[in-house]
């Protein structure tokens, strides 16, 4: 019986099955300890569950709905690609069949690697965290802002009717305006709730309730009144109508099915609480798991020269890489200094006594000044560009009077400023792209003699 088995049956307050059970409880859809045990011995029946687990933890939460419809093969491919992208070192994983029929030990290793390598639990917990506050969606157009959009692929053989294109474009514009309209409505309604509930919150810094909190207070366990989630906000304010309205937590958006919002929320909170508790427990007993994982690794057949040593470590993202880079940088700097020194000496001997006159030193000073100024300007613009750290996750929307003492967080004015600058850069990009299109159109029109190009109205 090896060490792992001893731990499995172990005495002591923390046994391996218990440790794995806490890990499972803190994961979304975590498998049972038995699956882990079977995976150690590479039993094929554990493989599908582990593929699913890996897929679940690697797929971004928002894409989940779309991704869930992926077939088993596609899910396995996804897992392989993402792990490869993350730098997973074992080539054995890539060779596993994608039908999920075998390779449970490899999958267990991959999962443990992820667990050790990245703050996996923290990510998963923060992704599924229930938001009680009203959130401000932060920048979501980063991808758009980056230059180098893919050039449109035009299939020359298939002609697209320009009028149809105009139609679709017009449709897009209308939808955009509707979106803005409903955003404005949401803001107006939120503002009403914040004003009405002013002074109700136990947290003095917040001062007012969020939509979710208001709903819970208003209707903690009224089982008579069945309401639809997205409608609650409007009904809360006595407004008619019924179209879906943005609500903060993803769980609430699912409340399309008639249900008790407050009770449902309570259940979700309880679930989240249980997972947080499990995660805390896991932190205390994870050593048992890692010791056992060593025996799993020991049970693997040797894999050629590049078998990594498996060390449990506190997941500090990127720390090691940073050290590596720093060392390299230092070495490079040393080299550079030596080279500069030798060059300078060679140059000075070459120039000899020349260049020590007053003109020379004045010119050098002026040059130095301009370089310094430019450097300063560059630094300033760099600092401005960085701006406030707006991209760090969503923020809770709180209405407080301007100039309130002790106000923390991100003032709206800053967000607006950042958004404005982003808008300006997006507009500049749009202008540039439009100019490109116009040039291209002019070129195309010029190639056809006798063609008259009249821009449609509104362009």
């Amino acid at each position: 019986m090896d060490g792992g088995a001893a731990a499995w049956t172990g005495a002591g307050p923390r046994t391996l099955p218990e440790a794995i059970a806490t890990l499972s409880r803190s994961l979304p859809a975590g498998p049972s300890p038995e699956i882990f045990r079977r995976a150690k011995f590479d039993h094929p029946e554990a493989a599908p569950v582990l593929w699913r687990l890996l897929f679940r933890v690697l797929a971004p939460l928002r894409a989940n709905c779309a991704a869930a419809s992926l077939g088993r093969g596609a899910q396995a491919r996804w897992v392989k690609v993402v792990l490869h992208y993350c730098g997973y070192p074992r080539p054995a994983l890539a060779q596993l069949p994608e039908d999920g029929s075998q390779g449970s030990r490899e999958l267990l290793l991959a999962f443990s690697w992820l667990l050790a390598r990245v703050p996996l639990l923290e990510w998963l917990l923060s992704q599924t965290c229930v938001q009680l506050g009203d959130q401000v969606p932060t920048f979501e157009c980063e991808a758009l802002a980056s230059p180098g959009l893919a050039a449109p692929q035009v299939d020359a053989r298939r002609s697209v009717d320009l009028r149809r294109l105009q139609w679709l474009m017009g449709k897009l514009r209308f939808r955009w305006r509707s979106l803005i309209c409903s955003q404005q409505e949401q803001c107006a309604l939120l503002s009403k709730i914040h004003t009405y509930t002013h002074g109700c919150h136990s947290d003095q810094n917040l001062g007012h309730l969020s939509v979710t909190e208001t709903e819970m207070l208003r209707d903690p366990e009224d089982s008579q009144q069945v309401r639809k989630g997205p409608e609650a906000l409007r009904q809360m304010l006595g407004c008619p109508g019924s179209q879906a309205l943005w609500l903060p937590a993803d769980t609430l958006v699912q409340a399309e099915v008639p249900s008790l919002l407050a009770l449902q929320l309570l259940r979700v909170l309880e679930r989240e609480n249980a997972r947080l508790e499990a995660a805390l427990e896991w932190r205390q007993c994870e050593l048992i798991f890692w010791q056992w994982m060593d025996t799993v690794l020991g049970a693997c057949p040797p894999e050629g020269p590049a078998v990594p040593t498996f060390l449990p470590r506190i997941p500090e993202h990127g720390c090691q890489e940073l050290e590596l880079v720093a060392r390299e940088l230092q070495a490079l700097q040393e080299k550079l200094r030596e080279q500069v020194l030798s060059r300078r000496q060679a140059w000075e001997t070459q120039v000899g006594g020349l260049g020590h006159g007053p003109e020379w030193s004045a010119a050098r000073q002026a040059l130095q000044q301009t370089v310094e100024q430019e450097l300063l300007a560059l630094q300033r613009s760099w600092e401005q560009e960085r701006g406030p750290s707006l991209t760090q996750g969503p923020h809770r929307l709180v209405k407080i009077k301007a100039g309130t003492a002790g106000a923390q967080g991100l003032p709206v004015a800053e967000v607006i400023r950042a958004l404005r600058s982003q808008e300006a850069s997006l507009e500049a990009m749009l202008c540039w792209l439009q100019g490109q299109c116009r040039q291209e159109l002019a070129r195309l029109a010029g190639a056809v003699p006798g063609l008259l190009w009249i821009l449609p109205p509104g362009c």
Partner: protein
Amino acid sequence: MSIVTVQLGQCGNQIGFEVFNALFTDSQSSQGLCSKRENEAYQASCKERFFREEKGVPIARAVLVDMEPKVINHVLSKAAQSGQWKYSQHACFCQKQGSGNNWAYGYSVHGPKHEDSIMNLIQKEVEKCDSLNGFFIIMSIAGGTGSGLGAFLTQHLHDHYSNALKMNQIIWPYGTGEVIVQNYNSILTLSHLYRSSDALLIHENDTIHKICAKLMNIKQISFGDINQVLAHQLGSVFQPTYSVEGSFHYRRNPLGDLMENLVPHPEFKMLGVRNIPQMSENSLPYSTFTWAGLLKHLRQMLISNAKMEEGIDWQVRPPLPGLPPLGKMSQNREQHFNTSLANLVILRGKDVQNANLEGFKDPALYTSWLGPDEAFTVWKTQRAFSRYEKSAALVSNSQFFVKPLDTIVGKAWNMFASKEAWNYARVHGTPGPAPPQTPGGDSRVRPLLTTGLAAWGTVVRGRVSEVCAELSKQ
């Protein structure tokens, strides 16, 4: 989401009153033929769109603008007398002197002079909406105040509320004409609105008049009768409908949904409305309708460009695909065929879920570049509208207005040309035609007129060539 109505001029104010009255009366009617809960949702939706509440009294979300006080005072008191709803006393703007059918006077004099006051009133009304869906601007196109000032205000609404939707409800003049300069005025209005409005919902006086005479059996037709028919048509379009079929949730963004389906193309913004059934209250109790019958008629009204249920040309058929394009037999018939860019059918009443709309999904009804999937939409509600157990309305972006447009542009060109000939004669001292009675001599209107005609000419020519191209393909 709410719609702010701007009532302009005599025509706009009179129609506006009838529209609000029709909307309110229908929403309060107990003859909706649906459950109490559904009726309440319908009422609430209608109220949110068009009314707000002040001390328990529904107030129309409207701004009333006219250069003479008479009509505004009249509709204010009529609304108050209804005892059901009111206009806000503080949402009216009027002056002592009208525009005298002078388009340029409305556009260049009244507009800039009163811009601040009127925009201020509109702003106040907008601030009373939780969310602004858009503007509904009711005006005639051939008069002075409504059309001139209307074009001016639409432009300014476009500038100030760029994200709000703007639908102009415009009244097309009688073909025989009440005003000599109506063709000029119409072209000027249209050319300006085409740049600033999102959609033009057009009612022809001639059509409504015929409906009053033939379908409603009215002997002495007054403007009141005409306006009531018009209000009925608008009500049948803009009263609430389900956002998703069978869901009992009412649409919250009616203007946006309508425009997205009908007028995304920047060059085709003119919409016509057809209703069925439409009859006098006396004959209503003795009539029964089936969805199949109503929709069969409505479809034929669409493809044969019939203005009403009576006198439909049943010979018109959609062109068959694959027939030789110049078959003599079919060509004649196809020329009467009305091609659609996009259609919206709105059904209200009993068993609406059973209505079969396949007839409207025939690709032959539409252009070659937009299939029925994108070009056809249907809205429904089980709630009956205005005492009709079943009723259907059609909002169509089609060739309905090609002919009226050609007529108006032709007449205006002729007038403009003869005026130029007269000017030429005067300058060169040769005898010429008599000067037509137009405001063209007004230095303010001349440049407007020239650019208006040129701009409008382009649009119309574009539209006509579009039609020709479509025809030659078939």
